[in-house]
């Protein structure tokens, strides 16, 4: 994996539990029962979605469970631009959208930040201004856009089309539509009357095909008028509908009872119809634009076209060529608090100040769940020289077929000592079968007592092995390797499997990406006793008198990434 070896992932099993439809629930329960028996397979396609580094997980104290990004609910506290760090009130987010409305933009080609520059030669910061990418050198000049002011670029850009054309506002669009409708009306009237002189005066304004936004605005207006014309035909005023009034009721029933009767059939022209012109959003397919695009690709080639990613990043993704792109206003970021999905308990809440990275509440899993890690134990050959290789052990070249020893290290963040049981399948799932033996799968880990206790007692740790001076380390089944104040390590023997399939069939057995990575699923169960009712939040609770102990148990799957097996 892209994480450096060795690493540990923790599985959150919430995907089984958060199903909503009852139809699924029954079958899910059965499946869960089966799953108890089943080994977690880090290579199953679903594993990618349930495995997290410990640092990414939260912990709900009420549910006493790990919470991953899937089993929490997020609530936005505030919005800000990550580039200019300006906080945006929610009303503005609602009206102006999810992007910075000041001058923050990213490059439409490479997504780096764009910078505002003055083109003025005198060195003064005077107009015209442009946006330029510091990384790929793209500038707004390439789409024919210059700005008059160095500030408020977003507002200026909203009115500037590529090539410096004016982009109409919605109001201007409405006005223009009305004007053209008038013209059209006049035209068709002229068409039917002898004087045909006044036509064609406006045709040159029709030349530019309407943009996506023009058409959308035309369609919006068209449907609005459709709904409107349909509405007034009913006998109610729009503001005092009261369906419980008997008269209103009978009027409705009257309307319905006309079903099948021909009484009103032709009395009114149908208001409901299709759009009839581009003013109403209708566009007849025109092969000319197709032909132009083909011709352009032929003439100018790859360089003037946009990649799929560049297109999709655009506000209007229906673009093809580099002269159609627009600078991308920076997406706003949010500060969010997170709650437990099942009990709604707040798990994290950041300070509301934009520049602060601190949290008011932060319940991290790493304060509640033991941390498991693995590293190579440099056991063989036990020469003084080789001992230095402990630091330079090549996790990217595990030798297939040769037993190697590793240490599983488990540290306890809790204030109570815990009893740990580890379980692992004897051979790893997947294409490459490696053999794994945890030499001491059951052990205790000390409490996370005051750090000073540790400082005082560290020199007298009960066992101290594996250091250079003691020569060959002894690995004994059933015995822990080492222990400290709140940690314990045990040895694991691993025989990495062979990456080349050994004569099993003639089929193509080439390994896929990461199939040579040695990952071990380890099931961790911890048991401990703690003061009943006394949560870490220190809420004085009357339940459970002081000194009364409560047994707790937690269990979860982890996946330990040991390294990459060398091809034979």
């Amino acid at each position: 994996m892209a994480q450096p070896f060795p690493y540990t992932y923790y599985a959150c099993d919430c995907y089984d539990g958060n199903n909503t439809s009852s139809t699924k629930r029954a079958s899910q329960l059965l499946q869960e029962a089966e799953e108890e028996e089943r080994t977690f397979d880090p290579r199953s396609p679903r594993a990618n979605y349930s495995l997290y580094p410990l640092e990414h997980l939260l912990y709900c104290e009420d549910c006493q469970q790990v919470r991953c990004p899937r089993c929490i609910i997020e609530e936005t506290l505030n919005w800000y631009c990550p580039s200019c760090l300006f906080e945006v009130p929610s009303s503005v987010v609602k009206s102006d959208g999810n992007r910075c409305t000041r001058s923050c933009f990213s490059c439409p080609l490479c997504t780096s930040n764009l910078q505002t520059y003055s083109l003025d030669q005198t060195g003064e910061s005077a107009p015209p201004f442009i946006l330029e990418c510091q990384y790929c050198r793209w500038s707004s000049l390439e789409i024919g856009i210059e700005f008059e002011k160095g500030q408020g670029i977003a507002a200026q850009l909203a009115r500037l089309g590529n090539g410096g054309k004016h982009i109409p506002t919605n109001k201007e669009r409405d006005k223009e539509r009305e004007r053209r409708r008038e013209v059209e009306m006049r035209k068709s009237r002229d068409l039917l009357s002898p004087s045909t002189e006044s036509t064609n005066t406006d045709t040159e304004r029709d030349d530019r095909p309407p943009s996506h936004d023009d058409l959308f605005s035309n369609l919006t207006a068209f449907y609005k008028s459709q709904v409107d014309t349909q509405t007034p035909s009913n006998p109610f005023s729009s503001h005092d509908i009261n369906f419980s009034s008997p008269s209103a009721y009978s009027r409705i029933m009257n309307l319905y009872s006309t079903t099948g009767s021909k009484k009103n059939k032709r009395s009114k022209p149908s208001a409901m119809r299709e759009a009839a012109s581009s003013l109403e959003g209708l566009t007849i397919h025109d092969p000319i634009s197709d032909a132009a695009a083909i011709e352009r690709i032929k003439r100018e080639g790859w360089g003037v076209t946009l990649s799929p990613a560049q297109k999709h990043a655009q506000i209007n993704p229906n673009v093809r060529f580099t002269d159609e792109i627009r600078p991308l206003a920076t997406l706003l970021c949010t500060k969010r608090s997170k709650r437990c999905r099942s009990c709604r308990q707040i798990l994290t809440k950041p300070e509301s100040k934009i520049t602060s990275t601190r949290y008011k509440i932060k319940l991290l899993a790493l304060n509640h769940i033991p941390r498991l890690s693995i590293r190579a134990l440099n056991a063989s050959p036990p020469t003084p020289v080789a001992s230095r290789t402990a630091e330079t052990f090549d996790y990217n070249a595990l030798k297939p077929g040769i037993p190697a020893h590793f240490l599983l290290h488990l540290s306890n963040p809790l204030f109570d000592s815990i009893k740990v049981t580890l379980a692992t399948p004897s051979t790893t799932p997947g294409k490459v079968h490696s053999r794994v033996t945890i030499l001491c799968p059951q052990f205790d880990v000390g409490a996370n007592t005051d750090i000073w206790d540790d400082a005082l007692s560290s020199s007298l740790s009960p066992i101290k092995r594996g250091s250079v001076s003691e020569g060959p380390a002894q690995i004994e089944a059933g015995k822990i390797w080492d222990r400290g104040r709140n940690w314990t390590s045990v040895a694991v023997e691993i025989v990495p499997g062979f990456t080349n399939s050994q004569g099993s069939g003639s089929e193509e057995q080439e390994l896929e990406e990461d199939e040579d990575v040695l990952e071990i699923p380890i099931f961790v169960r911890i048991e401990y006793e703690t003061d009943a009712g006394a949560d870490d939040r220190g809420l004085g609770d009357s339940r459970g008198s002081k000194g009364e102990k409560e047994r707790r148990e937690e269990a979860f799957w982890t996946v330990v990434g040991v390294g990459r097996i060398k091809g034979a």
Partner: protein
Amino acid sequence: MSSSGERKVSASLGRSVRGTTPRLADLASTPEAPRTPTLGRSVSSLFGSPGGSFRTEDEYVVIELGSRYVRGGFPGESTPRCTLSYDPDNQRRVGDYRQWDPEYGQKRRKPKRGQDWGQEFELYRMDLSQVDLGVVEDKFERIMREVYNTYFVLDTKPRRILLALPPKMPHALMSTLLDVLFGGFLAPSITLMSSPVLSTVAAGLRSALVVDIGWAETLVTAVCEYREVHEQRTVRAGKLLSEEMAKVLNAALDEHAGYQEFDDISFKEAEEVLSRVGWCKSKPRSNRRTLYFPARTSPILEEFEDAVETPEPTVTIPLSKVSPPSEIAIPFATLAKPADNALFATETALNEFDDHELPLHHLIYRALLSLPMDVRRLCMSRIIITGGVAALPGLKSRILAELEALVHTKGWDPVRNYGTASARHDHILRQQKEAVELRRQEGDDKISESLDPDNPLPAGLRGHEEDTIDAKLAHVALRNGPPPASVVGGIVRGVETLGAWAGASLVAQQRIRGIVEIDRERYLQHGLQGASKEKEVSVVPQRQSMGPGVARGAGERASWTLGVWA
């Protein structure tokens, strides 16, 4: 939302809610059928009157789901806030950032064992035997979280969802998707609308033949008055096209000197080449074997084998996934071959195709053929070509030309002339010329005849008079009828759409309720099984069922159905 709160609302406002919110079916009312009264309350909100805050909980987000993309945004906006694709790079474990590693970016990724071309880039397949619904749920949940957290950035108020879906999605798959939206994103209700209907809305039309050239299949849906009346499918779509493009590129790589390893082109490379420089010959090749063209004057006949240009134009394609990065030059004409092969299968005789692999133009022709005459008349003049592949330059023109040629040879009802999609200027000129003719004919009563869908005019009567009649209609329209362009029929004509997402945005903005509206509480209790079994398909039963609904005064719908998804 507490259920008690909701009940209160329904007691006082519910009935009017029921009556005020127009549904798409209401828009579908025909002049003959009585219209449901749709009152101005929700409409008035569009003008910013006090009525606007009538149903504040009625805020929507608009989501369109395809097998490879999800689009999400807000009602009334012309484009979605985001268009996200299912990419294996986004499907890794949290904390795995390898795609940002420049070295990794230069490697070509091989598809996983046993997976089809591009399968890792799909959310789902309609064939559930090839799908692990658990993985679908995982993928969908993750991408929706990105949509909500990165692009929607909503406040805490839950939003209703208008969901654009392909019609006929298997229920198990729908449940999986709805579970995520109800469970993970707390939607109070989800309104389902079918993509072809929404594409029709976004074209300004009420009836259309929607040709959705998607990823796994092309779906031809005849929509009449906002209802699906017929559909046909073929596997000739994006996936085949992309595979054909990969073949072309692999062949070019093989010839390319300096390649020891014949590393096959990756999915992403083929996709990028296709979307950047892929194209389609916009006119059918005169193919003597299939004899498209009868001996009559038609612009299609003028098209012979493409003239050979010298030197042959080529396109240089950079390859970044090889080291050192290099480029290959491919003849421009070759880049049009994948479309020929994958979508039109020009080299194969018609009788060799299975039903599910018909070339596009034959599929469309068959779809039209199976429609009742009056619906066909409407649909053939409202061909909407949409879907991911539709942007391929030349493709729309080609499909329309091929179809026109087919209709010419096979016919059901001869068409008038080619070139109805000609430039506006032509049209205006013609209009003027014919104004004279028009005046002469005024008073004639042919209009009503041509409007009557049950008695389409014999071809001979129509012929070149098209514009005359249209102009005449314009005249009538000015007084009281619909404008001429909205009643065009009987000719092959392509109409552009802004796409299903834009259609959904329009529908949500006008607060038109869909037929399939799923309430959160009900769904959580009963799942999709809660839907009543009746299909609301035809306009009339729908209308009748609304009467008692109002009479009972039920604010919420007493029952809901799955419409086309039932």
